C-alpha cells in the first residue's frame, strides 16, 4: 500500500516526513491541521505504521519522535472529542454485561443494513463496501493488541473469540480474507487500503478510534467495550446485508462474508459482553465505566458514519 493523498497541510507534512521526501516540508515543524479531514487522514496514516506500513514510507517512521509527538497530539484531540460526546455512565462490575445491553438497546442510530436490505442501489452498496473495506481488511487486528494487557479470564475469552475471527487456524476462513474475496467477487479492489483516498472523515474517525483504543494499554477497557458493542450489533444487520446483497444479485463470496457473521457474532456477542467485559470489570473495577465508554463510542461512530452516507445518498433516516 502507498501512503494516502494529503488532504491538507498536516497530512502533507506527514506524508513528506514518513516518505523522507520533500525535505523543505518534512524538516519544518508539523503544522496544525487545516480541517477535520486533514487531521483524520494524518492520524490514520500514522496509525497504519503500526499495522502493515507503506511501501513508500520508511519503517523507522513508526517510532520517529517528531512523528510520535504529532500522533500524541492527534490522539489526545480525538480522545477528548470522543469523551465529550459520551453522556457518561457507570455500573457495578457485576452489572457490566447488563449495562452493555442497555447501551445497545438505547442506540437509535440509522441502519445502513436496513437500507441495503430494502432499497439501496448497486452503486450505494459498492460505496458502502469501499468505505467498510478500510476496517474490514484488517478486521480484528486492533483488538489483537489488547491481549497482553488483560487479566487471565478476559485474556482467555478474547483469544477464544479471536481464534474464530482469524479462521480457527484455517487461512481460508480468516474474516478479513473472506472480505477481500468478497470485494473481488463484486468487482472491487481487494488490496489492503485500496480505497483510503475515498474514505469519508467519518470512516477514518471510526478506524482511528479503534486503533487508538487498541494501541494504548490505558484504553483497554474502551477497546473491549467497543468490541462488545460491535459484536452485539452484528448478527441481525449482517443477515440484512445478506438479504440486500442477494436482492442485487451479489449472492456470492461477499454475501458469504456477511453470512459468516450472522452465525459467528451470535456467539461472539456473549463471549465479548460476559466473558471478556464482565470478567475484566470484576478483576479491574475501574474499567467498568471505560467499557461503557468504548461501547457507546462504537455505536455513536457507526451512527455518524451511517448518517453521513445516507445523507450523501439523500435517504431520509
Amino acid at each position, binding site marked *: 500500500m502507498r501512503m494516502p493523498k494529503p488532504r491538507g497541510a498536516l497530512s502533507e507534512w506527514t506524508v513528506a516526513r514518513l516518505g523522507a521526501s520533500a525535505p523543505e516540508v518534512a524538516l519544518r515543524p508539523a503544522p496544525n491541521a487545516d480541517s477535520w479531514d486533514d487531521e483524520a487522514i494524518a492520524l490514520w496514516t500514522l496509525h497504519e505504521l503500526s499495522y502493515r506500513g507503506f511501501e513508500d514510507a520508511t519503517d523507522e517512521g513508526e517510532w520517529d519522535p517528531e512523528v510520535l509527538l504529532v500522533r500524541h497530539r492527534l490522539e489526545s484531540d480525538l480522545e477528548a472529542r470522543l469523551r465529550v460526546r459520551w453522556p457518561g455512565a457507570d455500573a457495578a462490575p457485576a452489572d457490566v454485561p447488563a449495562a452493555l445491553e442497555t447501551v445497545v438497546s438505547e442506540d437509535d442510530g440509522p441502519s445502513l443494513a436496513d437500507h441495503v436490505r430494502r432499497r439501496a442501489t448497486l452503486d450505494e452498496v459498492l460505496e458502502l463496501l469501499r468505505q467498510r473495506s478500510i476496517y474490514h481488511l484488517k478486521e480484528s487486528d486492533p483488538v489483537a493488541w489488547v491481549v497482553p494487557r488483560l487479566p487471565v479470564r478476559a485474556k482467555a475469552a478474547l483469544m*477464544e473469540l479471536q481464534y474464530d475471527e482469524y479462521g480457527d487456524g484455517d487461512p481460508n476462513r480468516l474474516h478479513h480474507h473472506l472480505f477481500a474475496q468478497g470485494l473481488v467477487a463484486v468487482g472491487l479492489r481487494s488490496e489492503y487500503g485500496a480505497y483510503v483516498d475515498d474514505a469519508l472523515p467519518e470512516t477514518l474517525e471510526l478506524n482511528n478510534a479503534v486503533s487508538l483504543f487498541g494501541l494504548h494499554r490505558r484504553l483497554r477497557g474502551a477497546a473491549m467495550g467497543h468490541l462488545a458493542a460491535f459484536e452485539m450489533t452484528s448478527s441481525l444487520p449482517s443477515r440484512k446485508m445478506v438479504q440486500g446483497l442477494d436482492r442485487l444479485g451479489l449472492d456470492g463470496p461477499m454475501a458469504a462474508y456477511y453470512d459468516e457473521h450472522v452465525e459467528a457474532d451470535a456467539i461472539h456477542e*456473549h*463471549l465479548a459482553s460476559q466473558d471478556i467485559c464482565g470478567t475484566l470489570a470484576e478483576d*479491574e473495577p475501574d474499567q467498568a465505566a471505560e467499557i461503557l465508554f468504548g461501547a457507546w463510542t462504537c455505536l455513536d461512530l457507526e451512527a455518524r458514519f451511517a448518517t453521513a452516507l445516507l445523507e450523501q445518498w439523500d435517504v431520509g433516516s
Partner: protein
Amino acid sequence: MSGEPRPGAEREFAHPDIVIQPHGPMLVRGAESIRDESGTVHAVDRPVVALCRCDKSSRLPWCDGTHKVIPR
C-alpha cells in the same frame, strides 16, 4: 516489576462446556458435531457454537440472533 500477585493469579476458574444464556442461545464448547431435530448431523468447526433455543432462527440449529426481536 510489581511484587503483588495479579487478581485471580492463583485461582481455579469455572469454565463450563455448556452455558445457557438467559433469553438467548445455549453456548456449547468443544463439540465436534451436533444432531438437529430432523436427525441431520452438523459438523462443528468452531471452538464455541451457539445453539438456538427460541426455535425461530433462520439457520437452525445455530442461533442467528432472531430471539432479540421476539417479544418476551
